[in-house]
């Protein structure tokens, strides 16, 4: 090949390379996002987050079906102490946020209109055993990876609070310190009902609000 063309071609490659580097440095590099930097601490940058408790869209409703007076039912399919309709599942709550969260619970109303007592409408939280849920360990209070079962969590049935004018719901935790890592951020919520002997017939319904909040020191 003619030497002139070879040198010309080489010159073209070199100049093109330099110009490409130049434009990369000044115009492309400034648009790269998410450049973590590290000094003594380790800080990553990503937009978002905060606190976020959510209810699984599959396990988000409890329907006990037709129920009889003076009978007890619950949604704990894992440990069916009471009469549990086959279709009834517990609720699955997940911490979608980037920080641990406490969870409080409050029902809209007492659910019953007969001569009820507080223990006729109860709740407890449990390690999730639903299909596809997190593995929280083997012992709910001592060896539980998902939340603090030993204190501040209602791991046995407790009366479900509801506002009784002028008093609001009790300000106690249902779940203490639910973790936020994807593998251990879930908790089951079970409901137990006892139908008062004089409960009128008809459809019953209530709404239960599950509230996530930044963890509070448990005295």
């Amino acid at each position: 090949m003619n030497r002139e063309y070879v040198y010309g071609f080489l010159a073209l490659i070199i100049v093109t390379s330099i110009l490409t580097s130049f434009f990369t440095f000044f115009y492309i590099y400034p648009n790269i996002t998410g450049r973590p930097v590290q000094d003594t601490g380790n800080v990553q940058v990503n937009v978002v987050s905060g606190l976020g408790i959510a209810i699984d869209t599959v396990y988000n409703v409890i329907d006990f079906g037709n129920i009889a007076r003076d009978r007890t039912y619950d949604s704990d399919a894992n440990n069916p102490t009471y009469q549990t309709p086959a279709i009834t599942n517990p609720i699955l709550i997940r911490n979608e946020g980037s920080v641990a969260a406490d969870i409080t619970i409050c029902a809209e109303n007492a659910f019953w209109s007969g001569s009820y007592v507080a223990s006729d409408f109860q709740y407890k939280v449990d390690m999730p055993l639903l299909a596809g849920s997190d593995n929280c360990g083997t012992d709910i209070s001592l060896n539980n990876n998902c939340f603090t079962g030993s204190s501040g969590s209602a791991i046995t049935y407790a009366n479900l609070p509801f506002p009784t004018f002028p008093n609001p719901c009790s300000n106690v935790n249902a779940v203490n310190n639910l973790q936020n890592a994807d593998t251990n951020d879930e908790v089951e919520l079970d409901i137990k009902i006892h139908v008062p002997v004089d409960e009128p017939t008809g459809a019953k319904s209530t709404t239960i609000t599950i509230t996530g909040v930044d963890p509070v020191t448990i005295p």
Partner: protein
Amino acid sequence: MKYVKLIFYIFTFFLLSNYMSAFLISPPKYEVDFESNAQKKVIITLVNKPREDKELDTYIKYEFLHPIAKEELKNAFSLNSSKVYFTNQEDYVYFELLINFPENLSMVGTHDLRVGAVESAQEGQVAFRAANEVRILIENGNDTIIIPPIIENVGGNGGTNKAKETIRPLPTTRALNIDVLNISAKDVYQGEKSDIIIKIKNNEDFNVDITGIINVLKANTVKEIINIPSTRLEPAKITDLKTFWDTKLAEIGEYTIGATINYQGDSKNVATTMRVKEKNFLIIFSFRNMLIFLLILALIILLLLIILFLLNKKKGIEILSIETKNLLPNTIAELIIRYKNHDNQDYTVYVEITINDISMNVVDKIGTDEEIISKSEGRLEYNWETNNLNFGIYRIQTIINYNNRKTEKIIEIKI
């Protein structure tokens, strides 16, 4: 086929079981100092995760205030909106808690107000809905959180309410001694990154893990949130947390960079201001960038000069070699000059041969015109009378002159 169906069912179950309609609230906790008759504003961010159309009700909850503080603060708080709406194109919506403190707050300590958002309930016998709250910690004097008495509802009988009060002791855990010393953020031109540095001192003698967020505000509106994940502070040391804000989508103007650092049930805030300046191409280059630019430019010019030099060197007429024959005193020696014409052009050249002795005295000179045709190699032959020459070392300089250019070659010979 049945396997295809099975896979489809498993896939559908997998999708359903992992799908979560959720929203996040930020910051999880916010501290505000009580100031007599002061007006303050807290901007709360709701994150649409995953993006979908949503309607949320916002609320203020006073249940975690002590009854005395609740009475004193009953008119102090309001929200700018009772509902917020997401579309499936939006990641964030914001609402504001407006604070109008009264003249006095009698209880010393930290009061725990909750501000949150709640979604709609599902249909069902026992239906559920999720809410998420920000703890607004109103500090009045010290950081011991005042916890109200527990009102335990023990059930009713057709509307007859029975309530009992349980006094819960105050928390005994002390606040950690962490100082957020300062925050700095550089003024930048639009499109550049502003380095943000937060200096935090851990005064404890053990490691403390912190998290936090950085709110970027313009005219009290949150424009961006930068999350600070868990970071370990070594004992008795100042730690620099470094991050940056990319201003490529930012408007020109002054911004407030506010950081909230959270640690073990406590938090501290620090803020600074910075400017995003208009990008002017003539002045955008900082001195450092200009230096790099000049260096690159110099490199390009240098490379071009080298290339041109190399190209020029090989162009024209090249003297390939100078050979001698019969090189003895008092005889006729032969000088043979081999050349190559690289150009596509014929030349009439003047060949100038100068012979010097070792002391650079000219001992002989030959000059002649020659014709050299284009793109050719050839030889020029000359006779050289070596009368009166002695044995020794001589230098033969050959110059071919053509078109105001010249090519030269020098050799040494021994007679």
